[in-house]
């Protein structure tokens, strides 16, 4: 019983992180029909920047909370700038090009960012300095750390904020209008270049937070971490229904749970043949399954009937 509860907890934590990243994929897709494969790299940059700042400040005598806050602010700022620049430099010139061109460009941007990160931060794994409180809490015979609680709460807060932004504000309305019909949105006075930039910037800010969360959760960061994380978050977005905000949240949480539970029981299920390090295969089973049986995702509509 307690392994089940434990894996649910782990799954929720992982799922919250996937959801934050999946939102970035889904927002960009919703606004411009583009799968921004470089988004995973933005998460990685967020993790790296945060980690560097923490390393720098770890002996400064500042309170841990302040150090984390500064690291987060730095990561968010850098990621926003990176996200903005990606769109401005790589995607905007291809706005009217056939769909394949920006897609290939996205993969190219992803490779470039990975290599830049390798040049800046090296090939080595960077350990997350052990500054976070390690207190554990018991619930239902399983344990949850303060860090895990914080991850889930912060993710939930940010997602709520995003949903309020999109559904309750003038800017959010403009984003939805642009997503539904860009030329008509322009007729209403919406500057869609601004809206698209804003979408990238917001998605990148979420990615920065997710980056700090992953590196804190696994106590490690490296230049390659964005690749697998990006693929999984993309899977989560597709699972929920790409382009759909609530879908990204749902898909992220579900994927986290599937992975955790899968990893927890895979040994038993295969008679010890596969171990929990096969965790990653679940995401791809999910991706393939969704693409075959429900390409529009769990709560997605048929991919938009766009003029």
């Amino acid at each position, binding site marked *: 019983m307690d392994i089940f509860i434990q894996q649910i907890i782990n799954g929720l934590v992982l799922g919250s992180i996937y959801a934050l990243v999946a939102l970035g994929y889904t927002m960009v897709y919703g606004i411009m029909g583009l799968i921004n494969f470089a988004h995973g790299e933005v998460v990685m940059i967020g993790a790296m920047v945060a980690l560097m700042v923490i390393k720098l400040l770890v002996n400064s005598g500042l309170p841990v909370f302040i150090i984390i806050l500064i690291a987060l602010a730095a990561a968010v700022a850098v990621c926003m700038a990176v996200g903005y620049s990606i769109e401005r430099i790589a995607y905007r010139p291809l706005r009217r090009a056939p769909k394949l061109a920006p897609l290939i460009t996205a993969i190219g941007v992803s490779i470039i960012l990975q290599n830049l990160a390798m040049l800046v931060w090296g090939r080595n794994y960077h350990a997350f300095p052990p500054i976070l409180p390690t207190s554990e809490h018991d619930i239902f015979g399983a344990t949850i750390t303060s860090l895990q609680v914080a991850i889930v709460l912060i993710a939930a807060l940010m997602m709520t904020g995003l949903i309020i932004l999109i559904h309750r504000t*003038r800017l959010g*309305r*403009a984003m*939805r*209008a642009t997503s*539904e*019909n860009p*030329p*008509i*949105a*322009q*007729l*209403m*006075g*919406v*500057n*869609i270049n601004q809206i698209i930039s804003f979408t990238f910037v917001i998605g990148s800010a979420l990615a920065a937070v997710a980056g700090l969360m992953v590196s804190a959760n696994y106590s490690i960061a490296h230049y390659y971490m964005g690749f697998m994380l990006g693929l999984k978050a993309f899977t989560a977005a597709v699972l929920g229904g790409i382009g759909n905000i609530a879908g990204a949240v749902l898909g992220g949480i579900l994927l986290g749970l599937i992975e955790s539970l899968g990893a927890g029981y895979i040994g038993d299920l295969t008679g010890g043949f596969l171990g929990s390090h096969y965790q990653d295969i679940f995401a791809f089973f999910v991706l393939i399954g969704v693409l075959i049986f429900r390409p529009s995702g769990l709560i997605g509509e048929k991919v938009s009937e766009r003029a």
Partner: protein
Amino acid sequence: MLEVTGLRVAYGGIQAVRGITFHVNQGEMVALIGANGAGKTSTLKALARLLNAAGGSVRYCGKEISRLEPHQLISEGIALVPEGRGVFPRMSIVENLLMGAYSRHDKDGIAADSAHVFSLFPRLKERSQQLAGTLSGGEQQMLAIGRALMSRPKLLLLDEPSMGLAPLMVQKIFEVIRTVADEGMTVLLVEQNAKLALEVSQRGYVMESGEITLTDEAAKLLANPKVREAYLGE
């Protein structure tokens, strides 16, 4: 108010609008009529900057507007009700109207104007929280017109408001268009339904294969044998 000179629109090599010249005076309702494919929609899209004109000039209140960005037109006071309505299907009626007022920041004015739109189209008021995509064609057309009015335009461009609607609905919509015009709005009305358009307008232009072939007062066009034969089915 609007002066279009030698406007040309081309799709690739194909010329859809071949150097047309026309004008709309302040406070006037002008009809632009023509058969399918005559180039009416292309003309309006070029005016609204959704298409780049291949040539010609568009002056509005004395200012050249043919190089503006599409999102800048609304603050100049030009609103287009596009062919096929173009409502935002996954937004409610209220949200669609708020999008129409996107360029404005005067909360009280916006509230007053949406009340005005609801008084013009009581049908919309009853369904204010309904998603636009679930409205009937006629209701969507009402919403599209209402949304355009929300920007408090000085010049209203209408592209085939009668398209695909039952006669009774067409009548209702045209009554509102007439009301709006009587309140002082300048209107350029594009229609295939020539009779209807000319009956509510002061002047008209007839467009054929990308060119304006005839222009006159609306009443005279209605009486013109050529127009009667070609567009009124007589």
